[in-house]
């Protein structure tokens, strides 16, 4: 697993590569929760190079999304491959998170109030 943060003006975009499984999810959790403290209106996970995610990784996503929701911020996911998309569908996560095809789509979709 590799996580590469890209700080933009009103969003943090994490480019995720590799696998998030039982052995890497706690590291994933630390990185994501640290980023949440930056109070950017959008946290976006760019998952085009994410190969694998199991329930331990999804648990982190769910907790992060709950935290953002409670502070009225957006949590978005983009670029899922078909296998992972299926896992999101089966989990019901596709209906819980904001799903985008690309990072550009996600930033464009931010409410006008969030833009400076």
């Amino acid at each position, binding site marked *: 697993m590799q996580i590469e943060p890209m700080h933009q003006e009103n969003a943090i975009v994490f480019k995720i590569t590799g696998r998030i499984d*039982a052995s890497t999810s706690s590291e994933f959790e630390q990185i994501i929760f640290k980023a949440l403290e930056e109070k950017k209106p959008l946290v976006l996970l760019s998952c085009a190079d994410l190969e694998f995610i199991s329930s331990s990784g999804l*648990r982190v996503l*769910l907790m992060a999304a709950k935290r953002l929701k409670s502070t009225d911020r957006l949590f978005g996911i983009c670029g899922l491959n078909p*296998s992972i998309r*299926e*896992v999101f569908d089966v*989990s*019901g996560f596709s*209906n*819980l998170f904001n799903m985008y095809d690309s990072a550009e789509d996600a930033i464009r979709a931010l409410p006008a109030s969030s833009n400076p």
Partner: protein
Amino acid sequence: MLTEKKSFSASSGRILVIDDTLENREVLCRRLEKEGHHPLSAESGTQALEFLKKESFDLILCDMVMPGMTGMEFLKTVKSSPLYREIPILMISVLDEIDAVAHAIEEGAEDYLPKPFNPILLKARIGACLEKKAFRDREKKYLERLHQELSAAAQLQKSILPPSLKDQLLHVDPLLKPASEVGGDFYDYFWLTPKTLAFVIGDVSGKGLTGALFMAVSRTLVKALAPLYKDPSRCLEEVNKILCQNNESMMFVTLLYGILNVETGDITYVNAGHFPPLLSRLDGFFALPSLSQPNPALGVVEEATFQSQQAILSSQEKLILYTDGIPEATNLHQEFFGINRLLQTLNSFKEMPNQIILKEIQEKMESFMEEAPPSDDITVLILERQPLSKSKKLSLTLSQGLSEIPSVLDQVRAFLDSKEVSEKKIYHILLILDELLSNIIFYGYESSKPGPIFIRISNINQFITLLISDQGKAFNPLSKEAPLLVNSLEKREVGGLGIHFVKTFSRSMRYRRNKSFNHVWLLLEKAP
């Protein structure tokens, strides 16, 4: 062992007397009774045949000249019947019929009695016939019992030799043809560890029962001592010492004992008096090198030391061990079968399955031997390492906890790729494994010191089966309820997803607690 229970007596017998003259019958029967026999008389050959159907006789006395069925005709009928032909027949005739009597003896009659009867001659001839019959019966019984004993021994000897081995990484196929019922050749193979296989081929100096006994002792010694010595030469030194003790009959055994690591193909072997093994390479079979100072046979020199040799059996290569019964098989022209004929046969069929190679060797030898009887036992052992992709099963053990999961999943992915499982299903299987393995580590073994988890994956037609076994706390994943998939972030609970995936993505699933083990069994399709 062979024992004669019934004491042998030729003094009296059940005797059938055939004569068309009532007076003759009565005279004969009276005499026979006086001698202690039990006669029964028949007035014709036809009547006698009826009596034969009803009871058994030790001897038949038959008149040569009778109306209807003649004595000769009766004799021929009895001697051509498999049921009665063993009963001795004494022909009764007047002295001027001597040519006819000679003819009767040619046709299988035991002897003849001249008329009128001479009591001393009668007693002597009947006594001789009955004695002969009793000897023959005893011999027949003895041979039957010997045959039974030998086939029981052959059966036992056969049953201690293992059948073909079909392991994921290795196939072993044997051929053993004893020259007689029981033999002095043997082979054996058994696992020393899950990754190392011991293999043995041996040839005892004697044949028959002595050879078979020494063979059983040798085979058992190697099998019993093998697990105690990592170094096969040390093992054979111990076997040799024991075989040398109390070996007054000076029996010995040539033996080749090797250890093969089925994962790496490394072989360490000790050759004590055998032809060197043959190894297949792309351009054909060749013999592994012999030692400059060959090891002695076992059972000869008590203080002998043995030197081991190394070889590598690569994937899909075959190693062939054989006893001298093959190269030294001799045909009627006193020619040896030789190693070259063996190599030729092996090279022409090297791409074939081992069973076919073994059959070809046998056929080649049979046509070479023509009518010559086999002079020695014949044993061939083929060890063949299997290519990984061909194996239908993958067995893995996880014992290092979470950090080991990625490498386990990598191996599983490689296996599934080789089985042409669809990308989507591979994902499902890897997800299921990640979920179940981490569950077992976290909850079953409570993270601290995870015990071993055994994973077996098989490809059966269009299905993949997973069997995951652990010795953690009893936990039935099926008993867990699926999380409520509510569309509200606030209300959605964290957790329960892993088991939900396992249930959703497997076609069927079973759980069993057996003693200290949890077993989870899953079935998935290979596609789409």
